[in-house]
């Protein structure tokens, strides 16, 4: 595991590092039966090394589409998406995605799903590493279950574990905790934060939950709909751990609530 830890350039965080991800004037137009449809328009932002960025927006505003471009699944129609100055062309294990939908491999057990992307380790190391991350997401008793035998919430945890195990530089997360109950969701948020503190991933986290965004993010991009654009950018200047009951927390929530409401007529 040590070899891989070296790959995570956590130390760079202190230096004023250049942005890891740069999105400039990005637009995405889909051809549909009813003609072209602009889903993203002139989206422009940067993500710094080790930053926790949340993208908050209503359903259908293009959050997943944006993520797909960053992940390399979709090409931009206009503008650029750069990973350290290089245009993003392909997906790969340096930019891991936790999908909104269930994308576990149904023919693999929980353990096998988690171990799927691990390469270049001995069998034993691989097993140990898998068990470690299985434990991290609290699924130790369910390692040999198949995806169809566990609940939706548990599936999400497996999805998280199978990318965390790759210790990617950049984590792209698409409403990963949307399907969890309030309590588990908070646990998972705490877990994610602790892992982030440990490994210094750069995280782009998509959510439609205001509380969640405030609890997690260094910075929040509020997206509007039709076409998908960034309506507002809010830097969350709260120390961690954050307390939901604090009034400063609530202030951020209210501000975001307003920001989300505004563009609607």
């Amino acid at each position, binding site marked *: 595991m040590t070899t891989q830890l070296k790959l995570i350039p956590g130390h760079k965080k202190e230096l004023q590092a250049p942005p890891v991800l740069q999105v400039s004037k990005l637009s995405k137009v889909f051809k549909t039966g009813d003609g072209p449809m602009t889903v993203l328009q002139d989206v422009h932002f940067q993500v710094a090394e080790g930053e926790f960025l949340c993208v908050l927006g209503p359903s259908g505003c293009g959050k997943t589409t944006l993520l797909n471009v960053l992940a390399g699944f979709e090409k931009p129609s206009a503008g650029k998406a750069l990973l350290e100055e290089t245009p993003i062309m392909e997906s*790969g294990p340096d930019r891991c995605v936790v999908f909104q*939908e269930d*994308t576990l491999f*149904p*023919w*693999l057990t929980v353990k096998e799903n988690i171990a799927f*992307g691990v390469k270049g380790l001995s069998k034993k190391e691989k097993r140990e590493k898998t068990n470690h991350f299985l434990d991290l997401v609290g699924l130790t008793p369910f390692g040999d279950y198949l995806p169809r035998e*566990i609940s939706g919430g548990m599936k999400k945890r497996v999805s998280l574990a199978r*990318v965390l195990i*790759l210790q990617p530089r950049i984590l792209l997360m698409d409403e990963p905790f949307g399907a969890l109950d309030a309590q588990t969701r908070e646990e998972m948020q705490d877990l994610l934060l602790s892992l982030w503190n440990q490994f210094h991933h750069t995280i782009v986290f998509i959510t439609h939950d205001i509380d969640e965004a405030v609890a997690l993010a260094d910075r929040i991009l509020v997206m509007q709909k039709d076409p998908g654009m960034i309506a507002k950018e809010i830097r969350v200047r709260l120390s961690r751990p954050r307390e939901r009951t604090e009034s400063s927390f609530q202030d951020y929530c209210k501000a975001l609530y307003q920001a989300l409401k505004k563009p609607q007529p």
Partner: protein
Amino acid sequence: MKATQNLDAQDGFAMTFNKPNGWMNSFIPWILPALFFMGWFLVSRFEIIPAYLMPSPRQVGEAGVMYAFGTPGEGPYAGRFWVDAWVSCGRVLAGFSLAALFGIPLGVLSGRVDAMQKTLSTSINALRAVPGICWLPLAMVWFGIGYKTTLFLVALAAFFPIYINTAVGARQVSPLLFQAGAMLGVRRMNAVFSILLPGAMPSILAGLRLGLGISWAYLVLGELTGVPNGLGAVIMDARMLGRIDIIIVGIVLIALLGRTSDLLLSGVFRLCFKSARRLA
């Protein structure tokens, strides 16, 4: 947390059965054959159909015993079974493998590549309606008489269900799984083996099972000409002579071999592939 798959229990439509225990489970499949056999027995016992038209179970049994255990020369077909079954199994296996060798890759291509699908589907859908026997004269011209022609006919028949089911299965694998795979570092061709084939496995296996069944059914055609032995050859000879008892022996043996090979195929796939074991 294990949610059992209770397809029948909850839905208010399907009848609910108490799960039959192990003894019952292995008993039930034999009900139908037993009933059938009883009917046959009664029909011939009371000579409702004369024996020369519909041989009695006893007659067929004797013919079967002779075929399997007679010493060669004792009578026609005596003792030929083992050699016949051996060579026929070999031919079915070879023809079926050949069909799988072409059917699965072409099916995968058709399922995932639109242009391929367009190129192949019309022709293949048209050709699968052509009776196998029509190919016999052409096959003899192409492949000469003997093993190759036999193989071609058996393989051709098995090809269609394998190809079609593989294509359907490949088409249904969710693009999200490929995205997930790509994100986890699975590179292009690798995705075929680590995502596409496992994802399409239930459909592929169904196609292979159908194809294997048809391989047996087309053995008769394949062994009609140019090979000296085999179950299909025996059946055709018996047919030429009107030996209905031997034909029935042939039906029973091919049904048994067909079922056995079907179970073997499923078993081997379940043993070798997680996806076959774990998906439907």
